[in-house]
């Protein structure tokens, strides 16, 4: 690992002042530290944001669940309030990686990194989340822009993620047996007016499967999507899974999610 300057600011203002084109925020470090160690990334300044109190914690109101950026997966997985409001989110967080990763990794780190096989981005998409940053509010649909890419500007800090509480929701995941990231993750959320089926792991970036969402919006039952073929043309094909297999899993897990709702 190349040496760097380590900063641990106490508030968001200081953190953003320290940010430059050669810096990175450090949350759980589950992605950042391995990439530093492997020499895949080098920074002059590492800005540890875990001491910023405001960034951590969970707020639940009738309509929304807001999770602070540095809140750990394990905290979400064990939150009684979230369990009451959006149990699917608790399930998702509880199945991320392994216990060590859940006790370090954060929601802010997860969505800022936007790994194509991360779980949280699908929840953001399906639950019409709004990403609060230190300068603006970004709807999830505009936040995840591509593989490991987001709408965040250099030095922009995610403060919290605000999820809309759905009528029903479920998350189904086929884990990669090695890393336990999602080979496929399907988040189905039934809102008052629409149903969102968000898919992660299948393509270069999380997306809403419009066909499945539409079908389920008109009739929310697994039989409505029975036998529906998912197009695999843009899907990832790698040593862990072929595009054909991924497409099969998307339709299968969409059905399972609806049944579990």
């Amino acid at each position, binding site marked *: 690992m190349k040496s760097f300057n380590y900063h641990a600011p106490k508030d968001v203002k200081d953190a953003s002042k320290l940010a430059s084109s050669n810096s990175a925020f450090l949350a759980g470090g589950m992605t950042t530290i391995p990439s530093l160690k492997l020499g895949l990334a080098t920074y002059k300044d590492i800005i540890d944001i875990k001491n910023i109190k405001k960034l951590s914690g969970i707020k639940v109101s009738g309509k929304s669940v807001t999770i602070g950026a540095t809140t750990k997966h394990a905290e979400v997985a064990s939150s009684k309030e979230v369990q009451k409001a959006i149990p699917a989110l608790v399930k998702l967080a509880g199945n991320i990686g392994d216990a060590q990763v859940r006790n370090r990794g954060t929601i802010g780190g997860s969505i800022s990194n936007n790994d194509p096989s991360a779980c949280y981005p699908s929840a953001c998409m399906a639950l019409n989340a709004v990403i609060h940053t230190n300068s603006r509010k970004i709807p999830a649909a505009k936040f995840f822009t591509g593989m490991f890419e987001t709408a965040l500007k250099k030095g922009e800090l995610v403060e919290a993620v605000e999820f809309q509480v759905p009528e029903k929701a479920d998350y189904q995941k086929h884990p990669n047996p090695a*890393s336990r990231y999602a080979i496929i993750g399907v988040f189905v959320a039934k809102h008052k007016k629409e149903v969102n089926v968000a898919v992660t792991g299948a393509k270069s970036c999380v997306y809403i499967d419009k066909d499945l969402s539409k079908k389920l919006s008109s009739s929310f039952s697994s039989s409505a999507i029975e036998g529906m073929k998912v197009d695999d043309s843009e899907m990832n094909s790698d040593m862990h899974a072929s595009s054909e297999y991924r497409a099969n899993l998307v339709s299968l897990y969409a059905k399972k999610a609806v049944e579990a709702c």
Partner: protein
Amino acid sequence: MASLVGSRVERKEDGRFLQGKGRYTADINIANQTYAVFVRSPHARAKIKNIDTSKSLKSSGVVGVLTGKEIAEDKIGGLIAGWAIRSEDGSEMKVPANPPLAKDVANFVGEPIAVVFAETLDEAKEGAEKVKVDYKVLKAVVDPADAMKSEAIHDGVDKNLCYDWLLGDRKAVDEAFAKADKIIKVDLINNRLVPNAMEPRACVVDYNSASEEITLYTTSQNPHLSRLVMSAFGGVAPENKLRVVAPDVGGGFGSKINVYNEEIVCSWASKKIERPIKWVAERTESFLTDTHGRDHVTHAELAVTKEGKFLGFKNETIANLGAYARVFGTVTPTYLFGPCATGVYVIPAAYSNVKAVYTNTAPVDAYRGAGRPEATYTIERLVEKAAMELGIDKTEIRMKNFPTEFPFKQTLVHTVDSGDYVAGLEKAKQMADYSGFEARRKKSEANGKLRGIGVSSYFEACGIAPSAAVMSLGCGVGLWESAEVRFNPTGQISVFTGAHSHGQSHQTTFAQIAADELGVPMENIDVVHGDTDKGTFGMGTYGSRSLTVGGIAIVNACKKIVAKGKRVAAKMLEVNENEIEFKDGEFVALKSNKKKTIGEVAFACYLPGQRDEMKSPIPEGDEPGLIESSFFDPANFSFPAGSHICEVEIDPDTGNVKIEKYTAVDDFGRIVNPNIVEGQVHGGIAQGIGQALHENTQYDETGQLMTASYMDYTMPRADNFPEFNLGFTCTHATSNPLGVKGCGEAGAIASPPTVMNAVIDALGGQEISMPATAEKVWKACKVMKKSNAKAA
């Protein structure tokens, strides 16, 4: 006194390891040490045109940079193949030179090219980045099945062929096949595995320029052997000037048998730069450069009668050696594989033909089971397929072909001294509720799932020793084992063993057997291993040999202690030696019932000064002291055997395979500590299930290792396993006085075919290769659905 052998004594090691008090090589630091970082080939095959070290030498903190040129100039030898195997045509095997630092050509990704020493690890890394190597990239040979048709990667090794070896009688096999009602055939790939010891390799070298002595702390399964190899073949230092210490070692599985490039280079360089050197592998280096396991491509056939009697067996295998032949590299796919490939069966005619090829991949060597898992997979897939094709129950066909009399002269090489294969399989059937399987299958079917059951019966030849046998098969040394038992004057005992414990719990097992022999509490006994300056000599630990060879040396040394003790006690008690009985730690004069404890006798052996007592307790012809040693070389291998049964359930929608039940019944002869043996079986089964369902080493066509981290290489985890259902049968080994057989590898030998037979059973007999990943199984389920639809 109750016997300790056979009881569930808690492990002496647990306290230390569970509290993080182990002392591993990476925990050792020497004042003034430098840090080594190796420059490694990024290419699978490349000519090294030029190495420019000038920038690196100027880099901050760099103390020295060395390359293959300097090591060649100093005439330091390379890595060796420990077994000489001959081809069928009588020619000697072809072994290319394997220099510690590649000088002219690099032959696999990760092969060391140069080394940088610096004041800190970061500076060494930085320095390594500044070594500029000019490569000419050549086309890599990666696939073992194509190796013989590809360009030769080593000078003088035609067709990349190390040897074309035959064991058995082709003509007899042809005759047997001509008489068969049916020929069963399989094409198998035994997938390459990365050993993944929890502790990555490491070494710390301390050179003393005054005494010219090198101390090497290293992650080795066999420190004495390492010293021998480094001294005799590496020319690093004479044996008496080289001390090798293997302290706590965090798992080996075969991957820490070899002396590696890094140990030779650092030992040599420490003398050159006159500074201590520390090197610790990163996980990626372990993936790339630890010796891998398995990697066979096999076509095998079994000739059978309608009734299911086996008549003949043939085995044509291509074994991938990787880039170089290492210590057990050439014997693993021959004598450790071929003889066991006929399994636990009476098969009148058989042969195994193995072509070992070089490829531009990491060297392949012994990995838990070494050859015997590959053998068992071959025969047990054939047997299971035969049962299916002949419509005979899979346990019945096995029973039909088991030998019923022992010693059993196996078709190729071995004479198995003892066993009861029928009893093992019967017990396994009962414990697995074999007869209730059909009902469980129906229940799964009703839930839309596929259920399968698989059996595998195995035997293996381990406890590798009989020196005469292994040397006649091409081993460069005899594989006996040594022990020394030292009674200290005040009664504690140090037991030195040449075996090495890196997870096998020798501190406990060996203390149990010595305590029983000497009639003292275990707590009085310390088992010492892993330091060439302490023990006399030893061959180390692999091939499930520690107890059956090393343990017996301890027993024999203890017997010598007792024999001397008797003579001394007789003199002390003023009776004849034959009037003394040794029992429960006491020498008893039978007539008078006067006694001396072994502690008192030991004390007396050291001649404590006793005023007015003029008579020495040492009989004439004996010397003072109570220290005895023994070198044990058994007359035969030991032959553990058993039957395992696995039941799986498959979700055809995802292809996920769930192991519902796993039953293992093993015969390890007499068991010293059931806890430890069960632990060994658990670990072995876990590794075997890893091979069957999860672990998938993949090189791309250019020879890059695609699965070089835990993000891509699937290590099995606790949640992949059910609770293992273990049982034992017991027939004593006749080749050693304890009647023990090895247990370290059995789980990994028996389990891959057991699991695969179950998966294939669930898939209606459809062949599928290891690892049976979810996607592969899903595809097979689709084929099955289609053919079922057609049939209906």
